């Protein structure tokens, strides 16, 4: 098993946002997480990559047999965890090339490999750029600075391609993309799928899941995974909206009273 989350509870400033999440992810799987705004999807992603703004009050996260909570954010990345941010931050003055080369070489160092020579790195970059058809000009700028919404999302997948993670969490990578870009990005993600890696896609739209076909779909609602199923769950959701889930939950709640 790649990732095993047990009864995870997370708070921000004493407000409980995740109220007991259980999730298991095996190599080769694609999991989709859907759910209304504010239900805690990004919070879950942040907890996985170690953003210390969130306090984990309870539960366990097991990653390849290691206790993930003991690892720093950079070590999680070096162990193969990648988050495609919902809102990638702009970093003026840090050039894309410098940033990416530093990141790639830190990973190599962690694995005991020699740093890539400048020429080899540029070659690697050119190769990976094609996966998401990213504009050449973007890599000559500062990290995300002045990138359009769609360009920022493409840039996240480009980084994923360069860093080659074992577990990629893509937080609403589809929002802000035009129809063509959505297809390009989704195809890019598919090219990066392998039997030994896994992807968690967080999305609001079933459309993305037509390209990146999930093995499992989970619905996160008010800090809990309230329903899990296969790709058809997303289709149902698209048809009926969240009221359907809410009603079902209310019925269950009544029954249990």
């Amino acid at each position, binding site marked *: 098993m790649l990732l095993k989350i047990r009864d995870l509870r997370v708070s921000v400033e004493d407000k409980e946002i995740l109220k007991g999440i259980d999730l298991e992810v095996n190599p080769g799987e694609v999991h989709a997480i859907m759910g209304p705004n504010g239900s805690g999807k990004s919070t879950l992603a942040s907890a996985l*990559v*170690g*953003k210390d703004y969130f306090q984990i009050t309870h539960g366990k996260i097991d990653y390849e047999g290691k206790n993930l909570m003991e690892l*720093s*954010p*950079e070590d*999680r*990345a*070096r162990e193969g965890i*990648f*988050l495609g*941010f919902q809102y*990638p*931050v*702009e*970093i*003026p*003055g*840090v050039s894309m090339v*410098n*940033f990416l080369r*530093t*990141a790639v070489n*830190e*990973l190599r160092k*962690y694995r005991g490999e020699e740093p890539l020579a400048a020429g080899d790195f540029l070659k690697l970059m050119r190769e990976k750029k094609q996966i998401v058809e990213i504009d050449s000009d973007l890599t000559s700028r*500062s*990290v995300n600075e002045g990138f359009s919404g769609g360009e920022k999302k493409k840039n996240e997948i480009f*980084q994923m391609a360069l*860093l080659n993670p074992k577990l990629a969490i893509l937080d609403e990578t589809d929002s802000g993309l035009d129809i063509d870009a959505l297809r390009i990005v989704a195809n890019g993600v598919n090219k990066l799928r392998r039997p030994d890696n896994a992807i968690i896609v967080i999305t609001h739209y079933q459309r993305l899941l037509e390209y990146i076909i999930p093995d499992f779909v989970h619905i996160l609602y008010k800090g809990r995974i309230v329903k899990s199923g296969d790709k058809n769950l997303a289709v149902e959701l698209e048809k009926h909206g969240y009221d359907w889930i809410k009603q079902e939950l209310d019925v269950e709640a009544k029954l249990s009273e």
Partner: protein
Amino acid sequence: MKESVKELNTAEKYVEFFRKNQPVISEGDPAYLLQLREKAIGLFEAEGFPPKKQENYRYTHLEPWFGKEFARYFRERKIAFDIDDLFSCDIPSLETRILMILNGFFYSNGQKGLTELDNGIIYGSLREATRRYPELVGQYLGKNAEMEHEPFVALNTAFAQDGIFLFVPGNQHLEHPIQIIHLLLSDTDQMVQHRNLFIAGKNSRADIIICDHTLSPHMFLTNSVTEIYAEENADVDIIRLQNEHNSSFQVTNTWINQERNARSRHSTITLHGGMVRNNLHVKLQGEGAHTEALGLFLIDKKQHVDNFTVIEHRQPHCTSHQQFKGVLDDDATGVFNGKIQVFQDAQKTEAYQSNNNILLTDTARMHTKPQLVIHADDVKCSHGATVGQLDEEALFYLRSRGISVEESRLLLMYAFANDVISRIKEPALKNRISHLVEKRLRGELSRCNCCRMQCQD
């Protein structure tokens, strides 16, 4: 009869010291210089050092530094050292003309005191220039740097004996930048006051690099004055790289005078220094003059850097652009005080100023104060100041890609500093400074990158 013996205060001691040593200090001075010294010591005597909490020196009280025990020498001392052994302050792939000042005196290193090129360009020892070209030097020396209410300029004017002189006649370009290296190297704690005079004639161009260095671990106090004249349509670029050790104290006074359409750029990069006060005073005397003032300091431990600027817009259609940045670690303190003064006739003035600072600890302090004094109505002025921390979101983004905290912080600090460095136009110099700044941020530049002596930190 009771005779009360009055204890002399620091300023009075300097005056007395001047009177006692006057014959040596002014030995061989032409008449105009003798008069200038007299005037200077008189003004200094009348004013003394700025009192504590005086507006312009609010966070940097200098009198105590000047009251410390320092040796002062009015004749060049022979200090035995092999320049090549100690020093390799090169800028790879940039050809410069190197001039050295050792403890306040022009260090000829076997060369001539003054170099006179066929096209009329002159550079070398100011002392020698005051004697060889009394008319030329007398026309400029002390005419720009004001002494009234400027006790440090007055003090320097009374005491200074040597420094660098540069004259670029009209329509001439300095082919290679002049690199001035101020060296402090002594066998005792020492005070130094030297003086530079740069004159860029009409339509001329000059690039000057000034490096301040300490080569021995003694305490040093420097009070220097640099006067710069940019005549009509001249273009002058000065970069000052301050890299002295932590028990050195430095006051620089830079006065730039610009005539019509003249352009100047003055950049101060402070990598190291115990206490540094930089006074930059620019007078835009002619219509259409443009000046750019850049500053960057990177300080830690108990270092203190105070950048004080005055930009005088005296005529219409002048522009000024100031950008000062600071990164402060540990218990370091920084000050920025930037004054823009727009005179009544100076319509269509454009004056911008920004000051941004990053505090890396809770104990570092930054005081920033913009001052706009505007007496014209058709002007565009703006200023902005920030004091903040490194962007946490950006830091996390970098770490989430596997980059260590230290390296991530470094990338962000470097990005912050690079705003200033990227404005340096000569690529070789930009690379060099960029490299030094990076080393400084990495903590690899403990005292002086160029110095091979491993003295105390």
